[in-house]
């Protein structure tokens, strides 16, 4: 090189240096994966050419000031005082060298996932306090390059999409909780959350502008939003929906269920003493037994020793090992979270909503509830 053109300082900058040390710089695709931004790792010289592609923005800083956003695809020649003779002269006289930098930022949309670490306690009119967990996906992109560089690179030194997403995730969960809270105030119950998921997505999208605009990030889309109801609540919701479809009240519904179970499982407790095909008889037997159970609840009549089923609450003989009504094993376990006493086969704690039993996340190895679809720790699907 004639004028002291030094060797390339970074393997990702494409092209070769000219005789005055200028070169054509482009962000090589091979180095883009998972990186949301890249700072050209050399001081920009006079007539360095920057190639900006359709999916990129370049920001040109000179002496700390933003001189240009190069957001249209093209090749741009940049000016600085770092020319071979002029730059050397200025440096020799004043002892200072002009700082000229270029940051590349990807314009493309990135995908991330979020999931709640702590449950949200939703106070429902019908079901009382229900613990909700939310999971979902979001798409984001850099909306304002300067804010993004200042907030993420200048303040936090983040460059990878993973680091940026880490910042976004928790805020997204809070936004969903905020939306649910406001909808609750407007009278929405826990059972109405599912049909309103797309509306909640829209609320979160709109509100995300206020939260992420200052970071230079725009949340482009929220999708796959999933609000996880505790199993007991879900079951109750399903039961109620079935009852509505059948136009039955709870007693009629339970009787029908018992008849079906008896017909399907003649050897079970519900069908004891009743042969196959004697479903209707079993139904009457069940009505009778339910009536007896109701009578058993009346204190004035002498009763044989009885207890309440650990699962459905039906009054059953004290020595029964299984509930004749719901078939639940009459043993209890303790919730590891709140120490509440629970049926042996419960999957969730009816008191605090904690999942009973756990599995390991394949990504971060964290202990997660057995029925989770996303890891609450790292957000990856399991």
């Amino acid at each position, binding site marked *: 090189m004639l004028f002291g053109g030094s060797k390339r300082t970074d393997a990702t900058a494409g092209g070769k240096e000219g005789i005055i040390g200028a070169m054509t710089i482009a962000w090589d695709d091979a180095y883009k994966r998972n990186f949301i931004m890249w700072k050209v790792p050399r001081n920009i010289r006079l007539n360095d050419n920057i190639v900006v592609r359709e999916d990129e923005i370049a920001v040109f800083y000179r002496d700390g000031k933003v001189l240009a956003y190069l957001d*249209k695809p093209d090749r741009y020649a940049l000016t600085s005082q770092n020319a071979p003779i002029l730059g050397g002269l200025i440096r020799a006289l004043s002892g200072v060298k002009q700082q000229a930098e270029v940051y590349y930022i990807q314009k493309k949309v990135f995908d991330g996932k979020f999931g709640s670490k702590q449950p949200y306690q939703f106070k429902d009119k019908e079901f009382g306090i229900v613990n909700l967990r939310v999971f979902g996906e979001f798409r984001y992109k850099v909306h304002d390059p300067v804010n993004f560089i200042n907030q993420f690179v200048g303040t936090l030194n983040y460059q990878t999409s993973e680091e940026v997403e880490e910042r976004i995730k928790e805020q997204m969960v809070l936004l969903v909780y905020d939306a649910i809270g406001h*909808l609750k105030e407007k009278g929405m119950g826990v059972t109405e959350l599912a049909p*309103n998921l*797309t*509306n909640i*997505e*829209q*609320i979160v999208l*709109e509100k995300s502008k206020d939260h992420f605009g200052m970071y230079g990030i725009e949340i*482009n889309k929220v999708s796959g939003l999933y609000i996880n109801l505790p199993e007991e609540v879900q079951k109750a919701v399903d039961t109620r929906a079935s009852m509505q479809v059948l136009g039955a009240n709870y007693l009629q519904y339970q009787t029908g269920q018992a008849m079906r179970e008896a017909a399907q499982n003649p050897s079970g407790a519900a069908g004891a003493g009743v042969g196959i095909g004697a479903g209707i008889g079993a139904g009457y037997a069940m009505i009778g037994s339910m009536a007896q159970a109701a009578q058993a609840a009346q204190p004035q009549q002498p009763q044989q020793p009885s207890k309440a089923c650990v699962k459905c609450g039906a009054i059953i003989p004290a020595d029964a090992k299984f509930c004749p009504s719901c078939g639940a094993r009459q043993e209890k376990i303790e919730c590891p979270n709140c120490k509440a006493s629970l049926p042996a086969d419960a999957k969730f704690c009816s008191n605090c909503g904690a999942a009973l039993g756990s599995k390991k996340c394949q990504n971060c190895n964290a202990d997660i509830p057995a029925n989770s679809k996303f890891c609450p720790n790292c957000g990856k699907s399991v």
Partner: protein
Amino acid sequence: MVDIRERIEEDRGILKKIQLIIPGYEGYRRREDIRKADNLLRNQLADKLKIARNDIEDLRRNLVYKYETKNLEKIGNLLNYFQKIDGQLRHAEHGYSGISPAIRIGEDELNKLYEFDYSMAKIIADISNETAKIKSMGEEEIPEEIEKIRGMLEEFEKTFKNRMVYITGIEV
């Protein structure tokens, strides 16, 4: 209104002027400049469409802060449609053809392409007029207006998608 092609011609620097006198390079230079003008024009159109989209976003904002969820899903879908067309406009084909193409795209075709894209500004203005109205509408009127705007966007998309076919004159 400014013709971007003329502006690009006026602003040719010394390097481009030299290219214009190199035999065999002149045509390339001219075509390249028209493509650039068309690209700038399409970006302007997309920016105008974005202003129209902002009206819809304002409407969503109003509803979200009142927690009126009735029309939110429809509005969200309309905004997604706006985004889709924005991408199509900004990244549309520039009008390149190969060394020995079956259908050549010369300077005349590129000029037609520019004029075609320019004519799309009228449709975008109509869409903007509609989106400006929606902000002041009541909850009951919104769905109908959304459908109207959606219809206009569909028409725009259909016309714009066929631009190269119209320009090259090979529509059957």
